[in-house]
């Protein structure tokens, strides 16, 4: 081949000057150190949990709780009962729910390559509620590890819904975002209302109905210790399973076909994400029912702080989700004390506007 005149004049960086922005040398994203952020969030979670334990109808100052924890100033018997038996399980449950919702939101957003996906929006939690209602109304006697069959059915419901929504939104190997959101909306609305049918078959004299309604509104109940430890173990195992999947989510951002060409087994990744995300949704639903926005907002804020790398986002999103929901649930049970408002409803009222504000502020990044 003849030598090209082009080859002898390689463009220097100076010649490319017009394309260079002044802020090139520092990163516009992820300025917050990763390890620092995780440490900070861990400490914040601890503080928030203590504050939440101190909040309620009976005033116990946070200082008293800190003193009991670190300076061996034991609490009175009444205080012990209130803090350890009534408040602690609920506070821990809200932390587990928050972390589970936030991680599953992160996973679904990564899988669908869309910041709008969360277990509530795409129908996963609707499916979990349907499964759970079947459990409440027909298998209320069955129990495994202190769990009713409800939790298992919630998981199955969640997986099945995801499989339906996902297959509806795919054609020719591509996921259509609009179809996905519409299918998710249709399925979750359908499922949301279908649970009212169970009222007709209610033979438990209203108990089932009460549980169902509190689930549909998103009330975090005070769980038994067995229930709490099983959900915590499930949450932690889901995080362990999720960790290797997170790097694959980064690759999946290039698109299914590109990821496939790079040797990623896209189908396995997808099934892994759907199963893990549904497990997390079921964990959240079994403790707190339908809670909107947590799975949407928390990954979103974490991404603003840390950039879109899913590997780093996983621990940060989990901690941030826990903090977020502990705070929200504390508000929900203390703002109108002694009456409680369901945290799901509080989230809809506070989370909605906050999310709209974020959307407005960062609309530039939503070129779909």
């Amino acid at each position, binding site marked *: *081949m*003849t030598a*090209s*005149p*082009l*080859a002898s*004049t*390689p*463009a220097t*960086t100076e010649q*490319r000057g017009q*394309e*260079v*922005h002044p802020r*090139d*040398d*520092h*990163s*516009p*994203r992820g300025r917050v150190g990763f390890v620092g952020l995780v440490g900070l969030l861990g400490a914040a979670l601890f503080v928030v949990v203590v504050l939440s334990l101190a909040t309620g109808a009976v005033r116990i100052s946070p200082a008293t709780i800190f003193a009991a924890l670190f300076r061996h100033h034991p609490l009175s018997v009444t205080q012990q009962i209130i803090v350890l038996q009534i408040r602690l399980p609920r506070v821990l449950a809200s932390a587990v729910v928050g972390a589970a919702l936030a991680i599953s939101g992160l996973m679904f957003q990564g899988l669908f*390559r*869309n*910041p709008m996906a969360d277990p509530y929006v795409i129908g996963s939690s609707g499916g979990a509620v349907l499964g759970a209602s079947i459990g409440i109304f027909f298998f209320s006697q069955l129990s495994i590890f202190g769990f009713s069959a409800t939790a298992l059915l919630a998981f199955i419901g969640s997986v099945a819904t995801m499989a339906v929504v996902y297959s509806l939104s795919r054609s020719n190997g591509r996921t259509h975002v609009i179809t996905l959101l519409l299918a998710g909306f249709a399925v979750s609305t359908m499922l949301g209302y279908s649970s009212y049918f169970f009222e007709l078959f209610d033979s438990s004299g209203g108990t089932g109905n009460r549980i169902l309604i509190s689930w549909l509104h998103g009330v975090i109940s005070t769980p038994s210790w067995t229930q709490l430890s099983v959900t915590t173990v499930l949450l932690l195992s889901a995080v362990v399973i999720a960790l*290797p999947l997170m*790097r694959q989510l*980064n*690759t999946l*951002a*290039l*698109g299914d*076909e*590109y*990821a*496939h*060409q*790079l*040797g*990623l087994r896209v189908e396995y990744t997808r099934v892994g994400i759907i199963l893990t995300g549904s497990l997390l949704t079921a964990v959240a639903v079994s403790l707190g029912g339908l809670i909107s926005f947590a799975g949407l907002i928390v990954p979103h804020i974490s*991404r603003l702080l840390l*950039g*879109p*790398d899913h590997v780093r986002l996983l621990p940060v999103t989990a901690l941030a989700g826990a903090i977020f929901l502990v705070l929200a649930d504390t508000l929900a049970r203390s703002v109108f004390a002694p009456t409680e408002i369901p945290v799901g409803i509080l989230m809809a009222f506070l989370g909605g506007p906050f999310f709209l504000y974020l959307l407005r502020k960062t609309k530039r*990044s939503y*070129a*779909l």
Partner: protein
Amino acid sequence: MNPLMRFRDVSFGYGGDDIIQSISFDLHEKSCTALIGPNGVGKTTLLRLAAGILQCNTGSVFLNEHPLHDLALKTVARTVAFVPQQLDIPFQFTVRQVVEQGRTPYLGLLRGPVREDRMAVDRALELTDLTRLQHRVFNEMSGGERQRVKIALGLAQQPKLLLLDEPTQNLDIGRQVELLDLLHLLKAEGITIFASIHDLQLIEGNFSTVLLLSPNASLMSGSPEEILQPTILEKAFNCPPRRHPLLLERALLHNERAR
């Protein structure tokens, strides 16, 4: 020397009629081949067959004498990189984070990136002159910069064969020259290049071989001088004689040479 990639009687169609009909050609190591042909003739399809994304209906594609469909995708991806026309990335991934994904064929479920992977990414960024832009957000970059990021992503795979789908499309003339400089640089690095090209005037001096894919005709292969002749091009592209400035210019040049 055996060719790096061989197409033997390859036919392919997306369900209906075959778009690609019984095509055979070789890509020799360290060659730089341009793939030309009219719109819709199957240039992208041919590149996707070469990348192993699509599998041919009949015939075979061989990579280093191994049938492509017998090789694991990861193995193929360590030798062949495909740079697509379009790359849409959700979220605010930085250039470096995008290029790092090129290491996927070297990573396992539990094997994360190590020093070697970081060095390959650094090298890919350096070759494409993106080192200073590595922390910029991909979605906020210009078309020319994105094209370089896509190539860097391919280079992070440390391929022997780089497949490019219309790399000069939508680039201004300055960025086109930049891109061709980059191709020369990659050729000097020993990378075999196979690119589909629409801008026929960019071929001479930059590509050693031209493959002309035309509808209802067999594949033509030859040097740029042999293939880029007005009569051949007018027929293949179904272009009225002496209407396109490029062809007119070529015809004049041809006559001059004949004299």
